[in-house]
C-alpha cells in the first residue's frame, strides 16, 4: 500500500528534496517504523505530528543517520543515500536536534556547538598545530544564543550540565539552525522552552526557511504547528497516515486524524 500525501496542491510537480519510501525499523519486538513514507519539499516547513510512541523520533533518526532502517530507501535531491552516521548526514547538509539533545554535559556551550566542526586558528598555528580558534568559536556561540534570546546564560564557557533544561534545548536549537545547509530537523525543539524562548525558536525557524532551507519540525504544540507549517505530516502507528495543509483543515481535524478519532477521506477511500 502506497500512502499518498493528500491536499498537496502546490509543489506537486516539484521533486521532493528528501524522500523516503517503505522505511521499517524494529526494536526487538517493537516495530517503530512500519513501511513509512516521507517527503520534504524544497524550502518548506514540514511539521510531523502524532501520538507519543507513534514513531516520529524513529523516523527522523532514520533520516539523519542516527539509526539505520531495516528496510526502505531514502533519496536526497533525487539521489539514493544511505547515512551510516549522523556525521555522514551532516556532511550532506542535514542538521538535526534530537529529542535527547546530544550534548556532552561536561563540555562548554561553545565546545558543544562546534563539536565535529571546530574552527581552527588561521595561519601556522591552525594549519600545523591544529590549534582551535576559541575566541572565534565563543563569539559565534554568543551571537547565536543572543539571537535566540537566551541571555540568562551567564557564561559561554559554562559546562552544559549546569544549564537549566530549557537553556540546554536553546543551545541545541541554535547549533542546528546555525549550521544546517540543506535540511534542518527539529525534534520537539520547544518542549522545555518558555513562552518567550519558544517564540524565538519559531522566529528562527522562519528565518531559516527564508534562507531557502527546508525544515522538519516535530511538535506536540498544535498552535505552533498550524502557525508555521506549510504542510503537516500526520504519523500514526509507525507510518504516515496523510499529509495535510494547515489552511485546508482545522486543528481539531488534525488531532482527530492523529489520534485515530477520524480517518482522512482519501485514506478511507483508498483502504
Amino acid at each position, binding site marked *: 500500500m502506497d500512502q499518498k500525501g493528500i491536499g498537496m496542491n502546490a509543489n506537486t510537480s516539484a521533486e521532493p528534496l528528501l524522500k523516503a519510501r517503505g522505511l521499517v525499523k524494529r526494536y526487538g519486538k517493537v516495530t517503530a517504523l512500519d513501511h513509512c513514507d516521507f517527503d520534504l519539499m524544497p524550502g518548506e516547513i514540514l511539521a510531523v505530528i502524532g501520538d507519543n510512541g507513534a514513531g516520529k523520533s524513529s523516523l527522523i533518526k532514520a533520516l539523519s543517520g542516527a539509526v539505520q532502517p531495516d528496510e526502505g530507501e531514502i533519496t536526497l535531491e533525487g539521489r539514493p543515500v544511505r547515512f551510516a552516521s549522523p556525521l555522514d548526514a551532516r556532511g550532506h547538509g542535514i542538521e538535526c536536534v534530537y529529542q535527547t539533545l546530544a550534548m556532552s554535559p561536561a563540555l562548554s556551550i561553545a565546545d558543544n556547538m562546534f563539536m565535529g566542526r571546530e574552527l581552527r586558528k588561521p595561519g601556522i598555528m591552525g594549519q600545523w598545530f591544529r590549534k582551535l580558534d576559541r575566541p572565534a568559536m565563543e563569539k559565534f556561540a554568543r551571537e547565536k544564543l543572543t539571537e535566540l534570546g537566551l541571555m540568562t546564560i551567564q557564561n559561554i564557557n559554562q559546562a552544559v550540565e549546569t544549564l537549566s533544561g530549557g537553556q540546554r534545548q536553546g543551545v541545541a536549537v541554535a547549533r542546528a539552525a546555525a549550521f544546517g545547509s540543506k535540511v534542518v530537523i527539529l525534534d520537539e525543539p520547544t518542549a522545555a522552552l518558555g513562552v518567550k524562548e519558544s517564540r524565538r525558536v519559531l522566529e528562527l525557524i522562519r528565518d531559516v526557511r527564508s534562507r531557502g532551507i527546508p525544515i522538519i519540525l516535530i511538535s506536540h504544540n498544535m498552535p505552533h504547528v498550524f502557525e508555521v507549517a506549510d504542510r503537516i505530516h500526520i504519523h500514526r502507528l509507525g507510518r504516515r497516515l496523510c499529509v495535510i495543509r494547515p489552511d485546508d483543515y482545522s486543528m481539531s481535524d488534525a488531532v482527530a486524524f492523529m489520534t*485515530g*478519532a477520524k480517518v482522512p477521506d482519501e485514506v478511507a477511500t483508498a483502504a
Partner: protein
Amino acid sequence: MSSDTKTATSYEEGLQGASDKVAEFHEQKTALKRLQHWLHMTPSAVPMIVLVAAIIVFGLLSPNFFKAVTLSTILQQIAIVGILGCAQSLVVLTAGIDLSVGAIAVFSSVLMGQFTFRYGIPAPLAIALGLAAGTAMGFANGWLVARIKLPPFIVTLGTWQIILAANYIYSANETIRSSAIAAEAPALQFWGYSIQPGGVKILYAVFLMVALVAILAYVLRHTAWGRHVYAVGDDPEAAELAGVRTRRVLIQVYALAGLFCAIAGWVMIGRFGSVSPSASTGQLGNIQSITAVVIGGISLFGGRGSIVGMFFGALIVGVFEMGLKMVGTDPQWTFFLIGLLIILAVAVDQWIRKASA
C-alpha cells in the same frame, strides 16, 4: 478571560472518539529469531552455552577430562572465586568495583587463624570475629564510597594495599600449618570436608558456593533491596530522587561484600588446610573475581546482569584452565589462551545480544 482559555485548547475537540487501539505488528517468528529472543531475555544463558561448548570440546580433546573427578575438581577450584564473585557482583551491580576482595579474604582468614592460635580464642568465636572483621573492612569501603563520595576504584585500590600490608604486618608472614589446625581447631577447616557419593568427592565449600549464589540470586531478583541495588547502579541520581536511600544501599552492599569475602577466607582455610598470609588470592582475587563477573555478563557500568551469569563465568574460567592444562599446554600458553578466552567469551555474548536486538 476564560474565553481565550476555551479557544486555546479548542482543537482538542478532535480528541472525541480517539482510538484506543494499540499498534499491532506482524513479526516473523522463525526458530532462529525465537532462539535469539530467548537468549536476549535470559542473559545468563549465553555464558551457559559457552560453558557447555567448552566442556564438550575439552571432553573430546582430552580423554581424562570427562571424568567425574575432573569435574568435581573444577568445582572445588572455583569455590573461592565463586564466593568472591558474589561479593564482586554485588559491588559491580552498583556500578562500583572492589579491588580489595582478595585482600579482605586473606586477611580475614589470617585473623581467624591468629585469633585461635595466638590468643587461644575458641575457633567458632574466632571465625565469628573474622567474619565481623571482613564485614567491617567492607563497611569501611562502603562508607568511603557512599559518604565521602570517593570513586570505588580508588577507595578499594587504597584499601587493597592497606589491608594486604596490614595482613603481612599483623601476621609477621607466619603460616599456620595444616596439621596444627586439624589437631586444635578443626572448625576452621569445616568447608574442606566433603561427601563422597559414588566415590566422587564434593567439598562442603562447593555446596556453600552454590547456596550463596542461589540466595543472592533470590535476593536480587525478588526483594525490594535487590531492586534498589540495581537502581543505584543504573542511575544513582534517579534512584535517589525516586526514593531509594542510595547511600545506605551502597554501604550495605560493600559491607555484605566484605562478609562474603570473609566467608571466602574461611573457605580458604578449609581448602588449603593451612592459613597463609601470602596466599595469592590476596593479589589475584580481585582480577579473578572481576573476570568471572564480566564473562558472566554483568555490566561494569552497573545495573545490568545476574549473579547466575557470574557463576557460569567462574565455571567457564575453571573449565578452561583445567581443560587447557589437561590437554597439556605449557603454562605460558595456558596463560595466553585464557586471555584469548576472556575476550572471545565476551565477544560471543555481545554478538548474540546484537543479533537478537
